[in-house]
């Protein structure tokens, strides 16, 4: 027997890890289904993707938006499948939090017990030894284990790579896709070469995990499925028959958990949204809510074509407003305020304090673009209308009628989003009426849209015509804090 053995905590961690990794992989596939294209550059320019996992092609002569590009994958490969980004995100973040905690405990115990030596090479001599082991495997023979250790040299290096390189890179590239992290620490995103590079690396890490798992399973089969599982289940290799059967039971249990959460997510999405959302929101509030955007991209970084999500209001009123340069448009600001206002676009432009910001737009689907937005800081408007003490949230009502304008999207009614007053007072919370030096284009929300640079794109309502200060978001719509929260089960606070 070796010096290290398989203590109970290693065995428990191993099987918990298997469960979380299956949940992470499947929910990750659900997330990529929503924008099944990978890029190297942060403008996500259509056609510049290096990989795509879709059979759809987009029209050339019509406005299409990124909702049209979404794929619907089978629940066999994605959690929960069938184009449920909101559910996929809840599971991905919930599993990620538990997986990171499991990993932290694992690393702590590794170093506390001296077990780290089973993975960390003690000398450079491991590399020639690993080469020798590789040649042995290529001869279809099994190499001998390192003296007094549970693994051969190649195996030891492979595990070290997965635990100390792949897992941390997965976590770090995941964080690099968070709008709050990127907005607060722009240098961190530059470290990865941008959000799309981080996203691409995140995907390559997935492939590496899948390749590792395939080889791992093959090697267990080659070395003896029963004996290896006996080690990982009972801590000794003396019960191969029990190892075989119990391992099959454990794998069946992991499959059953996956099936159960899939069915739960497809049948009772609101309950998943509330339960998992509570856990994820608590962690997100503690870690990411305090972040304030410090983005200042150079003008040279502006994307030639900023991608579009959502279709403009297909109404006669809106088209007549647009052809007249939005002269007939009025912005109503009311609700729990001392000084309700009705403003024209000219009034808005005439207000002092016009602010411009060149920033990275983070879409929930995964794409990004850089644009320079200009308009009125939201805090200036808040100062003008003077919210009453009981006002806690700001509701942005838009002219987009989703049933009419987005027939492919689930749900109906006018699009709206709600943010709390604290977020509305952020320095880069902006009511934008310009993009890249020109008037705000129709597909980007003309005449007025919201910019919240620590949040994902869907919170930044476009085609706004009414702003209401309210005491409680639960009284509006289905009470989840916005149209997407109500209809596609997104979180209300989206720092990631």
């Amino acid at each position, binding site marked *: 027997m070796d010096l290290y053995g398989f203590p109970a905590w290693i065995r428990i961690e191993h099987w918990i890890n298997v469960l979380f990794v299956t949940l992470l992989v499947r929910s990750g596939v659900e997330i990529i289904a929503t924008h099944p294209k990978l890029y190297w550059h942060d403008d996500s320019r*259509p*056609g510049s*993707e*290096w*990989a*795509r996992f879709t*059979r759809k*092609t*987009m029209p050339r002569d019509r406005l299409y938006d990124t909702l049209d*590009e979404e794929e619907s994958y089978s629940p066999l490969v994605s959690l929960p499948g069938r184009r449920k980004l909101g559910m996929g995100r809840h599971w991905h973040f919930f599993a990620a939090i538990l997986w990171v905690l499991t990993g932290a405990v694992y690393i702590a115990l590794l170093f506390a017990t001296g077990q780290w030596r089973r993975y960390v090479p003690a000398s450079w001599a491991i590399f020639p030894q690993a080469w020798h082991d590789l040649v042995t495997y290529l001869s279809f023979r099994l190499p001998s284990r390192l003296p007094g250790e549970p693994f051969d040299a190649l195996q030891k290096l492979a595990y070290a790579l997965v635990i100390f390189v792949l897992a941390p890179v997965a976590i770090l590239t995941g964080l690099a896709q968070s709008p709050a992290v990127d907005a607060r620490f722009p240098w961190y995103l530059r470290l990865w070469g941008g959000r799309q590079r981080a996203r691409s690396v995140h995907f390559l890490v997935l492939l590496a995990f899948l390749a590792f798992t395939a080889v791992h399973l093959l090697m267990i089969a080659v070395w003896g499925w029963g004996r290896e599982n006996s080690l990982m289940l009972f801590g000794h290799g003396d019960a191969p028959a029990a190892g075989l059967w119990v391992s099959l039971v454990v794998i069946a249990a992991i499959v059953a958990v996956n099936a159960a959460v899939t069915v739960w997510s497809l049948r009772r999405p609101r309950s998943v949204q509330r339960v998992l959302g509570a856990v994820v929101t608590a962690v997100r509030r503690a870690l990411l809510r305090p972040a304030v955007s410090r983005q200042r991209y150079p003008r040279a970084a502006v994307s030639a074509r900023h991608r579009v999500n959502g279709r403009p209001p297909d109404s006669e009123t809106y088209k007549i407003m647009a052809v007249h340069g939005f002269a007939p448009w009025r912005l109503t600001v009311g609700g729990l305020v001392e000084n309700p206002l009705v403003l024209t676009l000219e009034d808005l432009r005439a207000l002092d304090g016009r602010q411009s910001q060149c920033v990275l737009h983070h879409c929930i689907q995964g794409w990004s673009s850089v644009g320079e937005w200009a308009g009125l800081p939201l805090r200036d408007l808040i100062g003008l209308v003077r919210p009453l003490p009981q006002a806690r949230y700001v509701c942005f009502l838009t002219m987009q009628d989703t049933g009419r304008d987005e027939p492919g999207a689930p749900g109906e009614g006018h699009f709206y989003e709600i943010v709390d007053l604290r977020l509305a007072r952020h320095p880069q919370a902006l009511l934008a009426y310009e993009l890249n030096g020109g008037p705000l284009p129709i597909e980007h929300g003309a005449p007025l849209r919201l910019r919240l640079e620590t949040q994902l794109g869907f919170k930044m309502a476009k085609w706004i015509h009414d702003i209401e200060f309210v005491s409680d978001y639960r009284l509006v719509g289905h009470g989840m804090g916005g149209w997407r929260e109500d209809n596609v089960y997104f979180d209300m606070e989206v720092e990631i």
Partner: protein
Amino acid sequence: MGTAGGHEIRRGPLATVVLRYTGLGRLAGLLEYFAFALPRTTTTAGVTLLAGLGAVHAYLIADATADPAYLIAYRELIAAGASAAAVLMTLRRPARAGWWLGSAVSAVALAVHLVSRTAGLPRMPQLIGRWDCPLGTVTMGAAALFLALHGSVLAGVNVAFPRRRDWHD
């Protein structure tokens, strides 16, 4: 809305029959979900695999001088073929011919290796059953991977230099 057009590959009647009755049609449908725009990476991978295949055979020429003359000539042929294919693949016009030559060389190397270990080659009965030879495993691996890679190019999953994707989206 998006149209599910995908890659437009024209198929003849024979291909249609084969795809329909072998289940390969479903596989082809699945493959349409995967497309990469990495022509240089693809070609580099192909060239590397052929270089490995060629290097193994060149090494054997130098190492196993006592083998029958036909076997040495065969190894020279494989090494030369693999090298020529690798060079052609990096040139603009003959790149496609290079890929086909590489596939031919790989298929021959794979077949000869398998025959040498099973039925046996003339005057080389000692090779039968000798699977425990790392260079042989490298030969099989490189040849099979090259064939798979070329297959992915033909199936439209990958593109190889000098072709590019003309995705507008």
